[in-house]
């Protein structure tokens, strides 16, 4: 058996072992993170995401207007406020 082939066998063993260890770690760490999050920060998503205020119905229209304004102004204009007239 050539020396290169010997080296290749070692590589295979080290390589597959490493890949398995790392993906095992992915599973273990993933579970640890989930347990940590579930225990200490359950359902606090609203704090981190500051995007969606109430009033879902009007948002659709707002979105259309915003899209229009944004494209027309080359992304520089922004819709700051939209009020109904009546």
């Amino acid at each position, binding site marked *: 058996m050539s020396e290169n082939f010997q080296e290749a066998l070692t590589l295979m063993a080290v390589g*597959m072992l*490493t890949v398995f260890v790392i993906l095992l770690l992915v599973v273990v760490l993933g579970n640890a*993170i989930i347990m940590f*999050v*579930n225990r200490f*920060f*359950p*359902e606090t*998503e609203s704090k981190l*995401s500051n995007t969606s205020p109430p009033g879902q119905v009007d948002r659709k229209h707002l979105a259309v207007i915003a899209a229009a304004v944004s494209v027309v102004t080359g992304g520089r204009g922004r819709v700051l406020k939209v009020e109904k007239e009546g």
Partner: protein
Amino acid sequence: MHILEELYEMTAFSSLGQQPGVLLMLLVGFVLLYLGIAKKYEPLLLVPIGFGVILANLPGGGMGVVSADLIHLPNDRYMNLFEIGSEYGIMNYLYYALIKTGFLPPIIFMGVGALTDFGPMLRNLRLAFFGAAAQIGIFTVLLGAIAMGFTPQEAGSLGIIGGADGPTAIYTTIMLAPHLLGPIAIAAYSYMALVPVIIPLVAKALMTKKEFKINMKQQDKLYPPKHKIKNLKLAKILFPIILGVVVAFFVPSSVPLLGMLLFGNLIKELGSITSRLADAATGPIMNTATIFLGLAVGATMTHDVFLKGQTLGIIVGGFLAFAISIAGGILAVKAYNLFSKKKINPLIGATGLSAVPMASRVANELALKYDSSNHVLQYCMASNISGVIGSAVAAGVLISMLQ
């Protein structure tokens, strides 16, 4: 008369006589364009590569990448980029500035990360483990290639095609055997595009009808998972940071790839506060990188480099690596099922490749053929995404031990 002589001198016909391989390479370029355009095999890569091949082989155009020997100076120094650009033109400038330095693959991985959603994997973490088995093709073909006479570095670059991940294959090849960059990149992207053909082929050879019908949702009902994720958003923010640190401790040489992947993922998961960065990473940066990567990889395939027996070996070996990886994933699940009450559909092993999300989609359609209510997509995505990590880790091992 004098004018016609000058004219003939200027054209490429004079040099064509000395390089008959050029016509063959033009044919290769046309085939790649055909695959990219008419067959829609990864057109984002194959069209630039194909065009790059054509440009590079047209004699006299100076668009082919020159051998690294030509930029090597005495005293172990190299020509600088200004000299390379001035002397050898735009393609060599791109190649030596962006490719040979190993710059673009991590940059593309940053974009890939910003497009990746680890959610499906976090929801089915156990399945991530099967992304490991699907790397066996890499090392099997490495063994075989060495037996066939490839150097270990060349064999490693060839094997990595089995990881089913274009940027990883390119990065590994740049580090280990840059003279094979062209054919390996093409094999990697072509087989990725052929996933809809190769997965069913291997799966049908190794799986029983009963196995195709294993319904993951039913199994989940029978044996429900331990815990639900109560704050997915936070979990998805913590995951790339912590995984980055741990992977880096174990396989430092995979950091350029995996570190950038996880960074890209982090700026995506943070939402609006860093969306400017994520948009740049997935938009202008990634698209520009793709154009330059494709053209420059194509430009490495000059006839004197490409038209060798090795190229054929790479095309055959790459296919084997791919198929063995799929088989490895399937067999790993089958082995697991022997010992577990909760059964797993072996297709989830088959998607332990990278090729996200195409592999998962193909597996899903395959499962639906056998049972039209058996949606396995989300489960496949778990091993599919972990396959990206798996092959980057395998690449890190190869680079650290062979470079």
